[in-house]
């Protein structure tokens, strides 16, 4: 494979486009509402209407508004308007009606067809970088990705850039880890690039360094990574390959939850296609660069999202974290320097290389650059996936894009960061989302789950829910987390049932402090966060539940 060949594939793909495109979402959300049958029926309808020459039906990734699926978008290049039509809640029976609107060249008036308003802030306020291809390209066809300038960035770094230049570019872009902690990506790459393989170790393979993609998206309420992998898997492969080139690795692993079968399947297809075209494997683009990617499946352990536990799991062991230092960058998989980044982080890499660090750094806030993908869910009208520039306020996201609380309720809080995060009260909705601001509020950016809660949500219940989660997911290695989460859960149960005394509340706070500062890994260290943040903003709800609180 060389660059002209790549361009040829892209051109061929573009030429095969037809005047009218019907895109049908085949990501997991819509798929579970029967979108595959919708797609088949659309194809049949197109054939029956004799429109095969000018209409193409394709399966694409996530089109964001998941709660209204299955979604079908029609783009007619013969129309001057530019904005297509997005149909929502499409059933297989709607297929003929959708196709018939194409012939009449008129806006569909069928009472059965429902349109989503593409001019709604939910769509217009998004800025797609990570999701630029999502809902547009066919995730199961590499040609589709190549036509969208896919693998151009990989070619560019292999041909035009030294590994140092790549790292500098990422450093200058200001990209930070999208897994939650926000560590500067370029800095991490530079550390691994500099790290030496330990001497005297038996070499398992010729590899001395590894690149790992953390796709163990475990936070309940987060589905950004799943959507990226289902909608645009090649982007992650390309990002990983660029990283591997930059740090000098030739083997990569994607550690993915077994709960995401569709994403696994699409990744397998993507890896296979990329290998076949010589975009992965040995001598990529006829350069000296070799890079293989293998998938490793999780088996239902949230703690494996923690990087040392993730590595233990890749090595086929119990997913138990180990103390850091040494960091994976120094001693990772099998003792070798290892770069671990999250799916969304890798997905940001190709556009940064393609469009330049300056372009990327111009988006977002001073310290948090670029965009962030959020999974908007809970008691909100528009649930789904959004990508917004860093610095967008929570109010914009919840009230404008999300359309406010469903069923006329009033938003009370937004939960971010999953079990490691916290609840942000409605009074702080004007806070811009960036790493520092959310941390100041006692929550974290986290991987991007955003759950909206309305007035009917009891905050003690929320804390209780997350503590149950942490209790169940604690690996059991260190005492504070193993025992502390059990004790905290029981105290919260006691409070919830109105059987607790103020002394129990004191003990709750003391335990939270202790578990937070003494636990071995991030799971334990952040397990008290949902309690601490609800105590901070909704302490009255705890106090109201104290035993005899009504009497005094």
């Amino acid at each position: 494979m060389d660059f002209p060949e790549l361009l040829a594939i892209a051109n061929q793909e573009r030429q095969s486009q037809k005047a009218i495109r019907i895109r049908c979402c085949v990501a997991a959300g819509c798929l579970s509402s029967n979108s595959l049958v919708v797609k088949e029926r659309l194809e049949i309808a197109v054939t029956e209407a004799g429109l095969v020459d000018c209409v193409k039906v394709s399966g694409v990734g996530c089109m964001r508004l998941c709660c209204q699926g299955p979604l079908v978008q029609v783009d007619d290049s013969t129309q001057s308007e530019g904005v297509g039509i997005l149909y929502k809640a499409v059933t297989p029976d709607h297929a003929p009606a959708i196709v018939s609107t194409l012939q009449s060249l008129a806006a569909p008036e069928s009472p059965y067809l429902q349109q989503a308003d593409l001019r709604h802030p939910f769509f217009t306020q998004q800025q797609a970088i990570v999701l630029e291809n999502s809902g547009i390209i066919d995730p199961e066809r590499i040609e589709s990705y190549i036509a969208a300038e896919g693998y151009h960035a990989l070619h560019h770094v292999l041909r035009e850039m030294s590994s140092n230049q790549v790292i500098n570019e990422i450093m200058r872009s200001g990209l930070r880890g999208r897994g939650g902690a926000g560590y500067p990506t370029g800095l991490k790459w530079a550390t691994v690039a500099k790290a030496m393989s330990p001497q005297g170790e038996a070499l398992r393979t010729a590899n001395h360094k590894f690149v790992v993609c953390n796709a163990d998206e475990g936070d309940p309420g987060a589905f950004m990574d799943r959507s990226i992998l289902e909608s645009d898997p090649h982007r992650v492969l390309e990002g990983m390959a660029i990283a591997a080139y930059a740090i000098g690795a030739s083997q990569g692993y994607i550690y993915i939850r077994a709960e995401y079968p569709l994403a696994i399947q699409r990744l397998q297809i993507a890896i296979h296609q990329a290998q076949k075209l010589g975009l992965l494997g040995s001598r990529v683009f006829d350069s000296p660069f070799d890079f293989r990617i293998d998938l490793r499946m999780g088996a239902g352990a949230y703690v494996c999202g923690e990087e040392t536990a993730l590595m233990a799991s890749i090595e086929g062991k119990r997913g138990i974290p180990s103390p850091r230092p040494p960091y994976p960058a120094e001693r990772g998989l099998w003792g070798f320097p290892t770069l671990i980044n999250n799916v969304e982080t890798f997905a940001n890499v190709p556009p940064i290389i393609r469009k330049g660090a300056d372009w990327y750094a111009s988006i977002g806030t001073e310290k948090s650059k670029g965009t962030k993908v959020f999974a908007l869910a809970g008691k909100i009208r528009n649930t789904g996936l959004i990508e917004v520039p860093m610095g967008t306020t929570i109010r914009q996201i919840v009230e404008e894009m999300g359309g406010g609380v469903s069923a006329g309720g009033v938003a009370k809080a937004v939960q971010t960061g999953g079990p490691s995060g916290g609840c942000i009260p409605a009074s702080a909705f004007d806070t811009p989302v960036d790493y520092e601001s959310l941390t100041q509020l006692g929550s974290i950016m986290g991987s991007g789950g955003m759950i909206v809660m309305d007035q009917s949500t009891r905050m003690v219940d929320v804390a209780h829910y997350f503590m149950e989660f942490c209790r169940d997911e604690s690996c059991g290695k260190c005492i504070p987390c193993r025992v502390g989460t059990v004790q905290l859960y029981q105290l919260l149960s006691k409070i919830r049932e109105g059987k607790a005394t103020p002394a129990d509340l004191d003990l709750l706070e003391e335990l939270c402090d202790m578990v937070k500062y003494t636990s071995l890994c991030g799971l334990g260290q952040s397990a008290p966060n949902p309690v601490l943040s609800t105590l901070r903003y909704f302490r009255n709800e705890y106090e109201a539940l104290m035993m005899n609180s009504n009497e005094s």
Partner: protein
Amino acid sequence: MVTPPPIRTANSTSLQHMSNDSRLKVLDATMKRHQYQQDALIEILHKAQELFGYLGNDLLLYIAYHLKLPPSHVYGVATFYHLFSLTPKGIHRCVVCIGTACYVKGAAALLSAVEQCAQIHPGETTADDQLSFSTARCLGACGIAPAVVFDGNVCGHQTPELVCDRLQTFLAQR
């Protein structure tokens, strides 16, 4: 001096009763494809469970033997991960998502609906082996919350009524 019991390997005792089982051949092929590497244990356990439905002791010993791993290590790994089951599962599976989005949208009501309808708790299987019931920590289907998985198919926007209707079709087959 106490002598420990003779080494019992997967070759010497267990699994002989199913040495002609074609599923074992598939498992063998999988292990071979992974070059019997010890770090492929989790992938191999996935395959074994897919083939046999659950990970019985003889199966674990068989895998330990072929990967040259201590049995306690294999058992430890198999019991660490939620998706592995060491006991047989029912014919039908019902998994209620209790991720945050589903929780906020009423997963608790779905849980009690299943409990009422099938008379079993999460993690249990009905006495007639028709139905296994479990919970999941977020399927990533938050956009269509609350979600329930019936026999591997994710169904969104569930209500207690919908869930019970579906379960009735499973349980009616007994």
